[in-house]
């Protein structure tokens, strides 16, 4: 097998705020092989979007990053500004959430899709860029003539497709999709996800899919990583993790989705009690213990490390 497209080694991100240091990511290691897909799930504030920003070094100046991010074999945090610009979008591209805000309202969408190509000079003439834009638009299911439209003339689903077309413009090896379907209705959401899956198959793209919707990840990703309070608490093949969670937190997340046809889950919706912890004031020991139904006294003492919990599976809980 070729080298992995993305490797995170003990990634730590701490935001310096006026209220003190807030650790958002506390030692995350993961790998995505070429053409592979990893789903990253967790509640709001668990650090999953911070990881997306850290991969392309897009975090604000108040963020302190340590550990290593290898994107297509290059350490993103060792690169000079020119090298960093070259890696952005050609090695890894982001499909942003909130399609309306990620598009410039006063620029035609065709020009915006062409932007990465012109920045990276992957096309030589404006005419070639135009042809390529038409191709990209067709590949995401938008008629090529719509290249002249402004973002406000498109529907929410179309705008999200435009962002996907833009992400594909420089043939990246890795696509980072940060909640690509929030604020879309369910039907459009399904279409956009099917499109992403098709494009992955055609282009052998690796995908880092970030969402809070566990059920989506099991359908569209090979592997699953569950984050809680800035760390990965469980990792493994997506079907296995969803069907038989090892960590009590994953169990809670999985149980929050009702199973169609299962009467008991309809009548007694189960989920997690309590709120995610404040990253600035994490509980001692396992950060999940205040909400954990199986918590024991020793859970308050030390934070468990990831350990093998099954074939190709790891979980961070003393009970496995």
């Amino acid at each position, binding site marked *: 097998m070729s080298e992995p497209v993305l490797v995170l080694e003990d990634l730590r991100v701490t935001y310096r705020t006026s209220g003190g240091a807030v650790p958002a990511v506390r030692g995350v290691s993961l790998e995505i092989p070429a053409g592979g897909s990893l789903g990253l799930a967790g509640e709001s504030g668990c650090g999953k979007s911070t990881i997306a920003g850290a991969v392309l070094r897009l975090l604000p100046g108040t963020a302190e990053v340590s550990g290593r991010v290898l994107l297509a074999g290059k350490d993103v945090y060792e690169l000079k500004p020119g090298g960093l610009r070259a890696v*952005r*979008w050609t090695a890894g591209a982001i499909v942003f959430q909130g399609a309306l*805000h990620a598009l*410039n*309202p006063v620029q035609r969408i065709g020009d915006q899709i062409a*932007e990465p190509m012109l*920045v*990276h000079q992957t096309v030589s003439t404006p005419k070639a860029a135009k042809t390529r834009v038409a191709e990209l638009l067709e590949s995401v299911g938008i008629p090529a003539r719509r290249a002249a439209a402004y973002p*406000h003339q498109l529907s929410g689903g179309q705008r999200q497709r435009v962002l996907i077309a833009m992400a594909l413009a420089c043939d990246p090896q890795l696509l980072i999709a940060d909640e690509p379907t929030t604020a879309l209705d369910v039907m*459009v959401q399904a279409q956009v996800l099917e499109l992403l899956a098709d494009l992955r198959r055609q282009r052998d793209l690796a995908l880092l899919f970030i969402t809070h919707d566990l059920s989506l990840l099991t359908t569209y990703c090979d592997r699953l990583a569950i984050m809680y309070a800035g760390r990965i608490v469980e990792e493994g093949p997506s079907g296995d993790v969803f069907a038989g969670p090892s960590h009590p937190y994953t169990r809670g997340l999985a149980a929050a989705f009702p199973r169609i046809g299962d009467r008991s889950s309809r009548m007694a919706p189960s989920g997690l009690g309590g709120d995610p912890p404040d990253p600035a004031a994490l509980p001692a020991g396992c950060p999940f213990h205040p909400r954990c139904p199986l918590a024991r006294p020793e859970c308050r003492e030390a934070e468990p490390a990831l350990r093998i919990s099954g074939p190709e599976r790891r979980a961070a809980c003393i009970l496995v």
Partner: protein
Amino acid sequence: MTVRSMTRSGAPGVSAAGSFWRQFRRSRQGMIGLAILVAFGILALVAPLIVDPAQFSPVVARTLGNPQWAPPSEFPPLGTDHLRRSVWAQFVWGSRVSLTVGLAATAVTMVIGTAVGVIAGYRGGRLDSFLMRITEWFLVIPFLPLAIALASVLGRSTWNIILVIGLTSWPWMARLIRSQVLTVKQRLFVDRARSLGAKSGHIIRNHILPNVSGLILANATLWVPISILSETTLSFLGLGNPGNPSWGKTLEEAFANGAMTRNAWWYFVPAGLGILAVVLAFTMVGRTLEEIADPKLGKER
């Protein structure tokens, strides 16, 4: 499918310029202002065909055999002044000078103000603080003393008036643009452009400037009348170019030579009305542009 459109939705295929013009045409005050401006613009453009500026020299005016202080009934269309010069000729030529100064001074203001505002707002940090302190330094310089001092150093010319107005008015523009850039740079599409490897220059050109250009345009239009009034003030104080009569210059000469006490209304009324009309027209067009650029303003009316 729901269209989550926060901007005004236009019909598909309609260009931005087309929809802009449609909105502008709907505003009565904008169209009246535009009509006045077009009229004065044409007058200013054809002025060299109607009027020979040589006749503003008192010697030439005397050789033409014009009467002195003639009312419009004796020397149509607008009579003559104390130096036997045609007031109509001065009015026509004055439109040219006033519009030139108004537009050129505004251009100077916009260029300096936009450059400083965009750099300060986009870069932020120490450069921002530094540029803003310079801006404040220029803000507190009183306009008239600086104008008088510069005119005495550089000599009395139309270009110096433009320079003085530009130098004293760019700080307001810079602050306005900076605040707008600060909000635009927070938007996600700027992050997106950075994430795809764009350099700052590219981001400013393609994403920041197009999103503040509406504001720049509306304010430029509102700044022209202020520049014209400043020019009038400076000319009235005797700082203008004597050989290039503007409306302000006409008012000054009428005042200095006792046109008011002589009841020679034809000498000062045309220039005064000209200033009023152009300033009002620019303000009307500017307000309309501002309302289109910022729809929230329009609803309050």
